[in-house]
């Protein structure tokens, strides 16, 4: 399929414009940035595929930002943008293909939805004209695609190369399946999600019935449902004593057992005396002895203190005097600070000092009294801290009733047991109360310490602390020993006949596990299904790997061949591709060593590699395209690669592969060089003028004076140069006629691609063209034609023979005003 013309209509930068015509094997477009070049390449891509890669990538970043970007902003409501192209197929037939955007109800273009027509007949695809192609064969090679290739991650480059090898749909299917698998896992159906919750609980239940290994396996989502439930059945039989052989009957038996256990639940532990009661009780007598000792010390200190207070003044009075002596005015030492009379005589001061000295003894005995009191209280606290070792719960009437139901024949013994429990609890409480009373009383005593008379009174109340504590302790000890004895006799009966929460939990867990067999089965099935999906993914990957090998067998040689054209004689070069599951290994060679190409090749070489991968996809035997459009292909190339691309790759495509080549570039140097290389060939050179609100302005770019300058130089050279000069004179004749027609008549010559002679009659119709000009140009064409065909015996004209034709054409250019 060759491209004859294309007409974008309100697409991207285009509004309403004449079709862009492609009637030469090479079409060069030169234009600055933003002139509308990429709108042309994207129009072609959109026409063929209904989307552009640039837009698709943009949508990945922000659909909102790119929304509507295919539509020109001046597109009137109700007008559907389209791109239309005239193409020529391999069988010679010419067709008009049009892709039109759909409009919504408001008449606005839906740029993501389009319809296709061939020769004005709606079609679903291009199969009616036997046109089938894939995304990989896209004949539009754009710089951003190549740049992406250079900078992309290995996984993304994998996709690009897979696409270039024609495997993109397989890879996309693989990726879609992976995403579907993840989505399914992250958002399971309600029953699977519910079953997962249940199984998570069952894992805890398995642990509570000591099936820890199985719980670990389930935690790892490793199920073998039948074998697992066989283990569970064994455990159910072991715990319940059931002889069941099926899960259903085991569940029934376990449930019965669970009910029994629940009815026999009585936690006797809170009523159990300290198992080390004997040892604890042995610690009591020494403690009592210590209390007695502390009591003796306390009483002695109390006696000393209360004795001292009997012979001294009241403490407050002493304090009053002491304070008074500190307030005496040294300037007037005899004046009393309180009554302000001169009553402080030396004799009185001596008297006061004697009394205060006596009070020192009182202070000492008071401190001693307080210290002993504190020690006494501390010892009692120590005794109090031991009490929890003697304490247990009080058996209530309700507890007794519950036990009596379970032990109907032992009612009398149970009553005795309960009575002993209650007495013990009561006596231990009494002991605690006695100790608390003693501590409180001693603490209270301390508060009266500055009131010796009250201390004397209060000391009487604490006089019998050791006696009272000793009595309470003796009673509690006797009772505890009796209760402990009776508890020990009951203990085996309790252990045999009573159940507890832990046992009930085991049966409850078993019931849950047996009862939720279906949930486990569902999760196991889901897990097995996930494995099947994984297997399907693996098969696709295997298939892709196989296809990669097949594709690379044929393509690698081509890729290397194109790369060799682009990048000859370099020390570091791309050397091949290796298939992989998530990336291709791009190999490079340097000085006989193999390395990773992506890391080793220069930007320029990677640009060449990108082109070398894309070009063979378009020129592959199964590709229907016989044209290729390069949009800024040489941006990242150095001079040598740039020259190789223009001088070798494009001619190879045109001559060897019979491709129509379209090059869009923003580099004038590239465009001019391409024109120069192909000056004698069949090419068109367009220029994008500054973008207008109405769209890009595309004009044929002919600078006749440049051509003339080159011809003059060649005419002075050797045979080869002069032969080229003569051939270029023929091309110059064609350009003069085309340019004159375009400028004087305002439109392109209809036979612009025909032979020079076929243009002459049209040239004759151009205003300002004289009959003499027509005759002269025909004469020069006839004279220069043999240089193009170089028939046998052709003799290259001498410079003196060439010059008259040059001057004739120069005059014609001047006279027709075509110099600029």
């Amino acid at each position: 399929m060759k491209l004859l013309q294309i007409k974008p209509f309100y697409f991207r930068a285009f509004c309403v414009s004449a079709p862009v015509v492609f009637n030469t094997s090479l079409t060069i477009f030169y234009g600055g940035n933003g002139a509308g070049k990429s709108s042309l390449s994207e129009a072609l891509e959109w026409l063929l595929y209904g989307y552009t890669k640039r837009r698709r990538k943009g949508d990945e970043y922000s659909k909102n930002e790119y929304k509507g970007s295919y539509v020109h902003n001046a597109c009137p409501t109700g007008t559907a943008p389209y791109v239309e192209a005239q193409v020529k197929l391999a069988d010679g037939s010419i067709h008009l293909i049009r892709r039109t955007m759909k409009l919504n109800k408001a008449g606005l273009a839906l740029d993501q939805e389009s319809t296709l027509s061939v020769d004005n007949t709606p079609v679903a695809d291009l199969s009616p004209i036997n046109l089938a192609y894939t995304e990989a064969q896209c004949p539009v090679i754009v710089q951003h695609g190549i740049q992406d290739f250079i900078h992309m991650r290995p996984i993304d480059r994998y996709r690009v190369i897979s696409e270039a090898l024609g495997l993109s749909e397989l890879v996309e299917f693989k990726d879609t399946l992976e995403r579907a698998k993840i989505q399914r896992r992250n958002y399971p159906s309600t029953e699977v999600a519910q079953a997962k919750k249940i199984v998570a609980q069952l894992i805890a239940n398995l642990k509570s019935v000591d099936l820890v290994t199985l719980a670990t396996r389930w935690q790892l989502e490793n199920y073998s449902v039948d074998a697992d439930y066989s283990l569970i059945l064994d455990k159910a039989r072991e715990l319940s004593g059931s002889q069941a052989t099926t899960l259903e009957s085991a569940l029934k038996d376990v449930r019965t057992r669970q009910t029994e256990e629940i009815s026999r639940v009585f936690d006797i532990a809170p009523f159990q005396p300290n198992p080390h009661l004997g040892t604890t009780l042995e610690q009591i007598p020494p403690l009592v002895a210590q209390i007695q000792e502390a009591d003796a010390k306390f009483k002695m200190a109390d006696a000393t203190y209360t004795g001292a207070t009997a012979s001294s003044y009241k403490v407050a009075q002493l304090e009053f005097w002491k304070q008074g002596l500190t307030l005496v005015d040294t300037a007037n030492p005899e004046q009393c600070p309180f009554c302000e009379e001169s009553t402080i005589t030396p004799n009185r001061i001596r008297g006061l000092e004697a009394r205060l000295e006596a009070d020192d003894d009182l202070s000492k005995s008071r401190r001693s009294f307080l210290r002993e009191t504190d020690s006494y209280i501390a010892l009692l606290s120590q005794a109090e801290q031991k009490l929890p070792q003697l304490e247990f719960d009080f058996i209530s009437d309700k507890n007794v009733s519950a036990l009596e139901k379970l032990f109907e024949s032992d009612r009398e013994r149970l009553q005795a047991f309960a009575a002993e429990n209650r007495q013990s609890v009561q006596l231990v409480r009494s002991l605690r109360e006695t100790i608390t009373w003693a501590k409180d009383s001693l603490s209270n005593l301390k508060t009266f310490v500055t009131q010796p008379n009250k201390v004397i009174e209060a000391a009487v109340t604490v006089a019998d602390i050791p006696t009272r504590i000793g009595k309470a302790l003796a009673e509690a000890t006797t009772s505890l020993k009796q209760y402990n004895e009776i508890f020990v006799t009951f203990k085996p009966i309790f252990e045999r006949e009573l159940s507890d929460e832990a046992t009930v939990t085991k049966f409850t867990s078993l019931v849950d596990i047996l009862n939720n067999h279906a949930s486990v089965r569902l999760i196991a099935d889901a897990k097995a299904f996930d494995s099947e999906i994984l297997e399907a993914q693996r098969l696709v990957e295997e298939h892709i790997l196989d296809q990669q090998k097949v594709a690379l067998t044929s393509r690698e040689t081509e890729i290397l061949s194109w790369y060799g054209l682009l990048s000859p004689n370099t020390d570091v070069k791309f050397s091949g591709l290796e298939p992989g599951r998530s990336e291709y290994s791009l190999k490079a060679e340097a000085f006989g060593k193999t390395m990773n190409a992506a890391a080793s090749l220069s930007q320029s070489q990677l640009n060449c590699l990108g082109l070398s991968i894309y070009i063979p996809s378009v020129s592959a035997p199964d590709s229907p395209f016989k044209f290729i459009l390069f949009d800024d292909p040489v941006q990242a190339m150095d001079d040598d690669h740039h020259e190789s691309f223009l001088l070798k790759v494009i001619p190879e495509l045109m001559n060897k592969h019979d491709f129509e080549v379209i090059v869009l570039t923003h580099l004038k140097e590239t465009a001019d060089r391409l024109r120069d290389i192909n000056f004698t060939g069949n090419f068109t050179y367009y220029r994008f003028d500054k973008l207008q609100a109405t769209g890009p302005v595309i004009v044929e770019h002919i600078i006749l004076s440049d051509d003339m300058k080159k011809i003059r130089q060649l005419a002075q050279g050797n045979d080869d140069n002069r032969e080229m000069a003569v051939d270029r004179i023929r091309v110059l004749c064609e350009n003069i006629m085309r340019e004159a027609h375009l400028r004087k008549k305002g439109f392109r010559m209809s036979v612009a691609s025909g032979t020079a002679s076929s243009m002459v009659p049209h040239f004759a119709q151009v205003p300002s063209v004289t009959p003499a000009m027509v005759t002269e140009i025909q004469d020069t064409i006839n004279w220069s034609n043999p240089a193009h065909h170089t028939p046998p015996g052709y003799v290259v004209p001498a410079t003196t023979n060439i010059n008259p034709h040059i001057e004739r054409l120069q005059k014609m250019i001047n006279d027709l005003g075509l110099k600029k």
Partner: protein
Amino acid sequence: MPKSKLLEDIKRQTKDGLLRALLEAYDPSPDTAQEQKVSMLVAKLEEIFRGRLNETTSN
């Protein structure tokens, strides 16, 4: 866009029933949004899984 020959090939060659069913349900068209393609496969997977469950239950 015609359906990829490679997708048709793998569908024809594979003996894996699940993979074949997924390939049949898969829409490779570039006009179809990726999310929609994923949703279609998820729906297919769910349909197959549910079908299997029903089969197990009825057996």
